[in-house]
């Protein structure tokens, strides 16, 4: 980037000989212009971030039920969360499972697919298109399709497993297989991460591989000492954004339970609470049971955890570092 300012009227490299009043006027104009361009964003920041965030924190200390005025109750919501909520630990365990197993599985799978695609000599573009396509499918539609495909009575998945002599599990109807089934759904939709990995892999200079080969490095060593260091920022990016998405995991769990169970009322967490995630618990508390104060306490926890991961991203990933583009402020 050039070191020129965007103040407009100055031409490249010209010495700034303007007298002080004119300079001040220009500064004022400049500030006004910045304000004008940013105005919608500033309003959005105040109304759709700062205000609701402050309100969430405040409501988490009240007994708000969305209708009558909220009363301050101190830490009661947080104590309830830790001591007596019968469902919260299951929701924490489920979301934890998704973050610890589903997200890494998705990152590794996407990396594997990207590495295969990067090696292709013929039709790489076509394969990339096909691998990416499912990532765009609406999550609800993809989930409905998977519940149908994995249904134990007529679904094709258990049929195919039967052909090779495996008695397929109940998938979305089994408490121990519902999360693995959701993981398969996530792998199917991992094309976005795959495309990012593929671009990073193709950016690794070919000379480095050649040099490693001349040094007698085997395929694993070439991956470990050439590929991995080169793509590690992208892996970090994919993992952290994946974790943050995992913390928000809601739609697929909710829809899968609904479609597999067949009864909306009994659905959340079906089967047997095994798909009840933390955001689902928040939704149910707030919008089905109208415990808005308690839902906000859950929201504060979600906020703190996801911000911790965002901080990791900000500290480690260079593209997120604003300094990269910045000289002295005006």
């Amino acid at each position, binding site marked *: 980037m*050039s070191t*020129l300012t*965007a103040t407009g009227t100055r*031409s*490249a490299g010209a010495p700034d000989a303007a007298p002080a009043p004119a300079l001040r006027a220009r500064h004022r104009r400049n500030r006004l212009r*910045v304000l004008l*361009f*940013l105005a*919608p*964003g500033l*309003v959005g920041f105040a109304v759709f971030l700062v205000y*609701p965030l402050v*309100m*969430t924190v405040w409501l988490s200390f009240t007994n*708000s039920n969305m209708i009558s005025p909220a009363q301050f109750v101190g830490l009661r919501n947080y104590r309830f969360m830790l001591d007596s909520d019968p469902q919260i630990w299951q929701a924490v365990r489920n979301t934890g499972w998704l973050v610890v197993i589903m997200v890494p599985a998705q990152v590794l799978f996407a990396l594997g697919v990207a590495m295969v695609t990067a090696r292709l*000599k013929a039709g790489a573009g076509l394969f990339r298109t*096909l*691998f990416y*396509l*499912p990532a*765009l499918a609406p*999550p*609800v*539609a993809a989930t*409905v*399709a998977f519940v*149908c*495909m994995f*249904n134990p009575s*007529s*679904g*094709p998945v258990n*049929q195919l497993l039967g052909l090779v002599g495996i008695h397929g599990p109940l998938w979305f109807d089994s408490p121990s297989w519902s999360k693995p089934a959701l993981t398969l759904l996530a792998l199917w939709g991992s*094309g976005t991460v795959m*495309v*990012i990995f593929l*671009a990073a892999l193709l950016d690794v200079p070919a000379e480095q591989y050649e040099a490693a*080969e001349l040094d007698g490095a085997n395929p694993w060593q070439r991956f470990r000492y050439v590929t991995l260091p080169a793509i590690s920022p*992208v892996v970090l990016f994919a993992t952290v954004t994946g974790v*943050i998405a995992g*913390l928000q995991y809601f739609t697929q769990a909710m829809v899968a339970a*609904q*479609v597999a169970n*067949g009864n909306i009322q009994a659905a959340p967490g079906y089967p047997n609470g095994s798909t009840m995630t933390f955001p689902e618990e928040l939704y149910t508390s*707030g919008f089905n049971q109208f415990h808005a104060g308690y*839902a*906000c306490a859950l*929201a*504060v926890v*979600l906020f703190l955890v*996801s911000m911790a991961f*965002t901080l990791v*991203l900000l500290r480690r*990933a260079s*593209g*997120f570092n*604003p*300094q990269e583009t*910045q000289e*002295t402020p005006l």
Partner: protein
Amino acid sequence: MTSYAPASARAARSASPHRAARSRARRRRALVWVADHAVAVGLACAFVGPIVFVMLTSVMTDQQSLSSDLWPRHWQWSNYTTVFRTAPFGTWLINTVVYAVAATGAMLLSSIPIAYALARFRFRGRNAAFLAVITMMMLPPQVLVIPMYLMWARLHLTGTIWPLVIPSLFGDAFSVFLLRQFLLTIPEDYLNAARVDGCSELRVLTRVVLPMMRPAVVAVGLFAFFNAWNDYYGPLIYTGETPAHWTLALGLASFKTSHAVQWNLTMAATLIAMAPVIIVFFFAQKAFIEGVTLTGVKG
């Protein structure tokens, strides 16, 4: 990798084992080629299979969709019209289009100037503003949902899709981020040339920058459109109680349950929700892939 013998040994021998080694290497390369492409074809089947399955099941008869058949015996295309008669899919489709188009338009209108200011103006607090964008991008929507719902309820807008559209008028964090990343790649000289010619900053943006950033605008627009199209959480929160204002995603989620239909109709409805995405993707895949790459490569 290559199986060349050491130079001394090579010199000592005649040319023929040398040639044998080279043909061995060539055969090995061919085998690797076949293996790579076999894996790719297998993966392609796994990725495309579910979509083909949805298509085939969607044209089966009620009876056949209960069976474990994979291929429709009688192609019952009328399922697609039956879907629209069984549930208000037409209304949901219109709601979804309105939501997606309005949200995308509003987003572009607000986000392009913000991204331009963040990428091209110098001002105090620019770093802080960029950090705010990242924070908003990473913030789970669930964190803010309760106060937001209360706010829209006070404005009597709950039960409609407007609480989902109006925020786009004030900038969308992900779009701002992506546009900014792209804007940083445009050389400042182009903009200065226009400025020297006496263009105002707004004219520089609309006349010089906007044509250059078309690929990014297309990518961001497509992402915003499909985000709205695919959104389930937002419509559930704000229109959950009023089925007349549902979107396709919401209607599809409860279709199998509320209308107690067979898989064939459900799969037809699923395909209706998927089809626009698939069709647009094939026309605009370059923009998509470039947009995705832009998110990640800088990271």
